[in-house]
C-alpha cells in the first residue's frame, strides 16, 4: 500500500507542478480526496476518517502526532520552522498518511470502489499505477 501511496503522491506533485517537500505536499493527496470522500461519508464522516488515519499513521511517523484535522476537513501540520523535521521523515509521513487513508477506504468499501474513487480524483493516473499490489 505504501508503494501505491508513493505513486499517488508523485502523481499529485507532478500534476500540481510542485516540488515542495514540506508538510503541504505530504497532505496534498488526502486534501485532494476530500470532496469525493465527503460525498460518500459526509463532512463529519470525512473528518472522522482523517482523524483515524492520523492516529494510525502517527503511531508509525512521530511528527504526524502533532498534526490535526481542522473543522473545514483539512489537515493541519506542525510548523516546521518551529519544530524542524527531516525532509525524508516528512515524505515518509506523507506516504504513511496516504497508505493508511487508502487502507481504511479499502477496509470500508473494498478495493474496487476505492480504486474507482482514486480514478475519479486523478483521472489521468496511468492504469498500470492503479494497483495496490505493485
Amino acid at each position, binding site marked *: 500500500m505504501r508503494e501505491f501511496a508513493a505513486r499517488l503522491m508523485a502523481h499529485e506533485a507532478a500534476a500540481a507542478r510542485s516540488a515542495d517537500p514540506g508538510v503541504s505536499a505530504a497532505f496534498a493527496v488526502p486534501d485532494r480526496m476530500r470532496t469525493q470522500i465527503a*460525498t460518500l461519508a*459526509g*463532512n463529519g464522516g470525512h473528518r472522522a476518517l482523517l482523524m483515524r488515519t492520523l492516529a494510525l499513521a502517527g503511531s508509525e511517523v512521530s511528527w504526524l502526532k502533532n498534526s490535526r484535522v481542522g473543522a473545514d476537513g483539512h489537515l493541519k501540520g506542525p510548523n516546521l520552522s518551529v519544530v524542524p523535521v527531516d525532509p525524508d521523515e516528512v515524505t515518509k509521513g506523507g506516504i504513511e498518511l496516504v497508505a493508511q487513508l487508502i487502507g481504511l477506504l479499502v477496509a470500508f468499501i473494498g478495493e474496487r*470502489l476505492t480504486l474507482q474513487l482514486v480514478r475519479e480524483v486523478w483521472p489521468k493516473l496511468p492504469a498500470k499505477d492503479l494497483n495496490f499490489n505493485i
Partner: protein
Amino acid sequence: MKKQNAAAKRNASKANASESAKVAIRQLPTGVRGLDEILGGGIPEFSFNIIAGTPGCGKTTLAHQLVFANATPQKPALYFTVLGEPAMKMLRYQQQFSFFDEAKLGKAIRFFNLAEVLVEQDLDAVLAEIVEQVTSVSPGIVVVDSFRTVMRNATNTASEAELQVFIQRLAQFLTSWEATTFLVGEYAESEIKDNPLFTIADGLLWLWQVTERNSVVRKMQVMKLRGQASVPGLHTIRIGDNGLQAFPRTLGLMGKKTTSGRRRRLSTGIPELDTMMGGGILEGDSLIVAGPSGTGKSALATQFIAEGLRQGESAIMALFEERPQGYTDRASGFGLDLKKPQATGKLEVLYLRPLDLSVDEAMQAILDAIERTGARRLVIDSLMGFEMALAPGFRTDFRESLYRMIAALTGAGVTILSTVEVEDSFTAMPLSHYAISFLTDDIIRMRYVEIDGQIRKVMVVMKMRGGNHSKDIREYVITDEGVVIIGPRETDYTGLTTGIPTRVGKREDPAPETKATK
C-alpha cells in the same frame, strides 16, 4: 343510413381521439424479483413514492435495487443521504448483493449528502440543494434516504404548514423534472392518517418485520399506487444474496392452464397399484398418499418419480423431512438410480428447510425448478414436514396456501404426489390431520393391520376424482424392489380399516413375510 354512418364515424373518431389523448405511463422495473408483478407491471414513471417501514425491513436495499435497475449515464440516479447512514456505509453493505454494480457508481448513480445543510440550515436550504443537484444532473431516479430524518429534524424549527409546503414543492419540482422519486423513511402505521406526505404520494410501499414466537418474517404491502392495479394484501419478502425478493400472493395463479383435453394416465411404477387406480394417475392430478410412519409412503413416492424418469419425463422432489442423500440411498436400495438423473438435470431434489419458510417461497422454488427441468412429476414429502418448516405465522394459512400452490402446479400440468403422515387409530381411518382432502384429486391410504400375530400393511384407493377405481383393500410389502402389492387374498377379513380385523373365512393365505417359528 347515411346519417347513421356519419354518426358511427364521428363516434369512432372520438374514440380514436380519446385513445390517443390517453397518456401512456411507462413502468420502470424494480429490479426486485416478484415485485413488478405485485405492482401491476412496475413503478409508474415520474411518480412520487414512499418506501416506509420499521428499521431493518429492507427499505434501503429496495431503494438500491430500484436505483441499480434503472440508472444509466444518460438518466442517472441521484441518491440523497441524510443523517444516519452515509453513502460510504451503504456502499460497504450493499456491495455484498449481486445487483450491486460498481461500474454504475459515479456516472449513473451519484450520492449526495444533505446532512450538513439539514443540520446547519433550514428546509428552504434543503430544497434549494436538492433543486441545484437535480437541475445539474437531470436524474431519472431520485432517492432521499431517510426522508423521515429530514422531516424529523425540521419539525424543531418549521411549522406544520411549512412542512406541508416543503413536501408539496419538493413533489412538484421532482415530478416536473421527470424524476421518479422514492422517499425512504421509518414510519409507523399510526402516522398514515395525519401525515400529509402520504396524501401527496402517488405510491406507498410498506415493509414489515413480523415477529411471532421465535420467527421473524418480512412482508410488504402496496398501500397505494395511483394509475394501476396492484395486487392487494401482504406479500412475503426475503432478503438474500440477490437483495430483496418478493413472493406475490398470486404466484402461480397467473400462469396459463395447460391441462386440457384428454389426459394421459401415468404409471406409479407399481403395476398392481396402477390397476387399482383404474390405469394410473391422471396427468395433472394431485394425489395424496396418507399413512403412518414406516408404511412406505416415501418408497411409493420414489417409485412414482423413478417410473417417470424411466419414461423420459423430468421430475422434482421437494423434501421437507429426510435429507436428499438418505432419499437417494434408499432409492438405490430399491434398484432405482436417482443420482444419474440428478447429474443430467432430469431430476431436481429440493431440500427446502430455510428458517421461517413461507408457502410462496417453496412454490417459487418449485416453479423455478419446473422451469429449469420441464418437470411433469412432483413429489412433496411430506406435507407435515412442509408445515413444520413454515414460520408460525404462515402455518395458520397453511390450508389456503397449499390449495393455491397445488392449484397452480396442477394447473401447469404437473402431476403431484404428496405424502401425509397420519397416526393409525384402531377405531377409525383418518385421512390426514388437516382435512385437506378437498384439495386432492386422488387419495391412497396406507395402514397397519394386525393379522395372525403380525403387523402387516394394507392400502386402499379411497378416491379417484377422474374415474372409477378398485375398492379392494390390498396387502403389500416393502422389499428390495420397493412397495410390492401382493395378490388378492383368498381369506376374507372384516374390520380391516379398524386395524384389528376378524377372519371370516378359512385360513388360506400364507403370511407374506415369514413368521418366526422359534
